């Protein structure tokens, strides 16, 4: 066994350990000076990203990989934690790393003038650790622990601009929602443990019998994780916290939100994978019921997100509401994939949904970065106070146009690729769903064209006569996202074949996930 194999074998642990160690070294490193601190942050991310990349190449080639913390043999059962990495987890980890990189580069000049940055970077690295942990873990209690860490870290980051009352309000709202949510996840985990004497997702999935308690557990887990992902009845925390967090960390918080979405998908497809075809009352199979509930909520999410975005006057809050709509699109695709499980278009829907995870992160992320740049130069949030910025901020304007076209699903940008897959597959399930989705996508375009005119066009205000272009590191971060958006838009097949198809196969083929643990020891 050569060195590379050893590194790959240890990488699931290292991916968690490196940013965690980096987070707690950060206050020490910050004592030296700010440049060293920024380079140290990037270095930690580079190292983590290197291991994520190596693990990704291995997992995509050789199938799921197991990492065991604690007892290797089964003589002392339960005294261990498993990390199980399959193509879906590693896809999520890659998204998280991309977002983290961009946010880190962006923070370099965006947060320059603030103090308390040692704590800021510590929290950022902690949030990245917890997001990666949620995505890589194969143990449901471990998932809860990382969920709580991400809740604490993101709450502290949302309240980072503590001099604004609104930031505190948003943070309090966020922590109430996530603390209660996490406690109900723990309650559900307790019930799972009580029935099956196991905490491992694969072991649980193998023995799950779909008793009455299991129905309650399914409802609790899907509701709570859906809430943390921003699904509609409980979406109200999302625009508040996205809108009030420093825009440089919104991307990373979005990564944590997507990890909750991953949790929903993992619970339905893997944990309940064996019982999805169980017939319920009135001879409705479970997958149809769950799928249609998700589809209904998703359609409401899309409509509410777009409609609320129309009437907002605060730029970042507006983008927050369009993020709710984008989450709706992902749930729509996943719901269609579950409801029509087994048909060819269900697989297409899954591909669309999983690709949209990446695209949503990039598009909404790009818009938040642009909104951050606008806030950086003008110190204003409201659309009514900003006007005519295109004269002095050429690059930012171009990036905003790319972002708005991508988020509205216009070709040739990435939003089109995934949304087209979603429309195409959902149409075969029910044409009305597809029509609503397309209509809302067009409305989204209207919303952002309005924003574009308000912010970048229009008369030049005297207050902004001397505004300059955003600093270089912010432009670099926006440019990277825009380049990725255009690249995925032009060559969607590359990404779909390389990453999305294996991820969808990993979800559909839950027997492999279970077999890796149960048969592989």
């Amino acid at each position, binding site marked *: 066994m050569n060195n590379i194999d050893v590194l790959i074998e240890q990488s699931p642990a290292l991916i968690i350990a490196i940013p965690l160690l980096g987070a707690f070294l950060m206050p020490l490193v910050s004592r030296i000076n700010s440049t060293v601190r920024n380079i140290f942050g990037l270095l930690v991310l580079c190292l983590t990203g290197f291991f994520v990349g190596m693990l990704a190449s291995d997992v995509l080639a050789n199938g799921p990989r197991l990492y065991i913390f604690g007892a290797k043999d089964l003589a002392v059962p339960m005294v261990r934690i498993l990390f199980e990495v399959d193509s879906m987890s590693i896809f999520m980890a890659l998204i998280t790393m991309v977002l983290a990189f961009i946010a880190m580069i962006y923070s370099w000049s965006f947060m320059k003038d603030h103090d308390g940055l040692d704590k800021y970077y510590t929290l950022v690295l902690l949030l990245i650790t917890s997001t990666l942990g949620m995505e890589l873990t194969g143990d449901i209690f471990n998932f809860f622990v990382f969920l709580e860490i991400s809740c604490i870290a993101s709450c502290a980051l949302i309240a980072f601009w503590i001099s604004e009352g609104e930031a*505190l309000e948003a943070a309090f709202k966020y*922590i109430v929602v996530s603390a209660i949510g996490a406690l109900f996840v723990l309650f559900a985990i307790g019930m799972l443990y009580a029935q099956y004497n196991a905490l491992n997702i694969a072991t649980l999935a193998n023995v799950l019998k779909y008793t009455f308690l299991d129905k309650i557990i399914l409802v609790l887990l899907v509701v709570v994780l859906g809430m943390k992902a921003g699904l509609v009845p409980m979406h109200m925390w999302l625009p508040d916290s996205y809108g009030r967090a420093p825009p440089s960390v919104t991307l990373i918080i979005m990564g944590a939100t997507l990890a909750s979405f991953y949790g929903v998908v993992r619970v339905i497809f893997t944990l309940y994978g064996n019982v999805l075809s169980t017939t319920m009352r009135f001879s409705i199979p479970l997958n149809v019921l769950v799928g249609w509930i998700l589809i209904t909520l998703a359609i409401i999410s899309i409509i509410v997100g777009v409609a609320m975005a129309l009437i*907002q006057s605060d730029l970042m809050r507006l983008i927050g509401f369009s993020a709710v709509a984008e989450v709706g699109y992902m749930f729509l695709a996943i719901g269609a994939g579950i409801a029509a499980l087994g048909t060819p278009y269900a697989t297409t829907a899954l591909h669309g949904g999983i690709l949209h995870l990446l695209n949503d992160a990039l598009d909404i992320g790009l818009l938040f970065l642009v909104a951050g740049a606008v806030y950086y130069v003008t110190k204003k949030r409201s659309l009514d106070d900003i006007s005519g910025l295109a004269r002095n901020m050429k690059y930012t304007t171009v990036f905003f146009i790319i972002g708005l076209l991508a988020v509205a699903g216009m070709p040739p940008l990435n939003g089109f690729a995934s949304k087209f897959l979603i429309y195409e597959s959902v149409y075969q399930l029910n044409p009305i769903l597809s029509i609503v989705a397309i209509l809302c996508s067009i409305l989204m375009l209207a919303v952002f064209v309005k924003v574009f005119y308000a912010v970048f066009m229009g008369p030049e205000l005297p207050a902004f006569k001397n505004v300059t272009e955003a600093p270089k590191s912010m432009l670099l971060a926006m440019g990277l996202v825009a380049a990725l958006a255009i690249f995925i838009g032009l060559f969607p097949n590359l990404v779909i074949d390389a990453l999305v198809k294996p991820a969808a196969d990993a979800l559909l083929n839950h027997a492999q996930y279970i077999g890796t643990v149960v048969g592989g020891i």
Partner: protein
Amino acid sequence: MIEYIPFIAVVTMIFIGLYAVLFRRNLIKIVIGITIIESGVNLFLIILGYREGGVAPIFTSLPAGTTYPAGMVLPVPQALTLTSIVIGVAVLALMLSLVMHIYRKYGTLDVRKIRRLKE
């Protein structure tokens, strides 16, 4: 019947906590509500691991005559509870510090008056 009483207590605690979170107007009372839910969930985990007449699951200091492992209560739920308590303390501290800062900014703890974000 008697063995169900702890579970009834758990459900009651969770509902009392939820009531406080949903219907109380004072931020401190909302925080207390969340703490009550947390205690309910922790109690639930502890009950799961309980065996009648079991001793504490410390392997090296088992009392003479206990059978291993049948004579001990289950160790895993206790480990889970410890973890959950530690996390709970962190969340509680964070929430209380937020409440403190909100009171400084708004001069009130009434949720009806703390709604600058509603537009």
